[in-house]
């Protein structure tokens, strides 16, 4: 039973990693590629580490395997966020079929500043003078 579960975990983990690699080759732009690698590769490595914990079944090894899983689960989203941010900043092109880029009207790539969209109201209030501003 344990043997069967272990083999299933290893196989499913390997298949997920293969799918992640397939996605990174086949998908059209940076963000979709990241969407493939981050989730699938994280899940694949976690499943294989679970299989390692089942195989050895000692306290020290199980603790280490769970530590690896926890570390991967905590760092993969952070790394993906940071790379996606850097990729947007350096101007990597989006896929032609992208229907919405919500950051584009608010972000100025030259001054590296992000506008919230509420600036005209604030500037108008400032121009009207501080006297009629609500306390």
């Amino acid at each position, binding site marked *: 039973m344990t043997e069967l579960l*272990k*083999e299933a975990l*290893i*196989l499913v*983990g*390997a*298949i997920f*990693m*293969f799918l*992640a*690699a*397939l996605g*990174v*080759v086949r998908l059209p732009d*940076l963000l979709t*590629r*990241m969407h493939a*690698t981050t989730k699938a*590769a*994280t899940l*694949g*490595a976690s499943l*294989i*580490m679970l*299989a*390692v914990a089942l*195989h*050895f079944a*000692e306290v*020290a*090894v199980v603790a*280490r*395997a769970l*530590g*690896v899983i926890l*570390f*991967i689960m905590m*760092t*993969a989203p*952070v*790394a993906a966020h*940071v*790379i996606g*941010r*850097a*990729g947007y*900043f*350096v*101007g*990597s092109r989006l896929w032609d079929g992208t229907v919405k880029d919500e950051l584009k009207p608010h972000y100025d*790539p030259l001054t*590296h500043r992000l506008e919230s969209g509420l600036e005209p109201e604030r500037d108008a209030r400032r121009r009207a003078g501080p006297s009629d501003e609500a306390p």
Partner: protein
Amino acid sequence: MSIVIMLSLVLMALALCLAFVRLCLGPSLPDRVVALELFSSVIVGIIGVVAIATDVPSLLDVAIVMALMAFMATIGFARFLERGGPRDD
């Protein structure tokens, strides 16, 4: 060595090859960084499977160090890219 371990090692080796294709092909530097991150994840998996196949639990330490180094390298690359400003490679 059982057939499942053999099959999973073959699958992960194929995954490494595909990631290498993206690493060579990748139109921009962030794409290459994503491929390198995938490399490290697949290598963590391979180390786990090899640890099971050879019954050596000490190999897990290597997996821990691998995951840690990949995270550090990714953060470093991202900082380097953000300092640079818009680029076209």
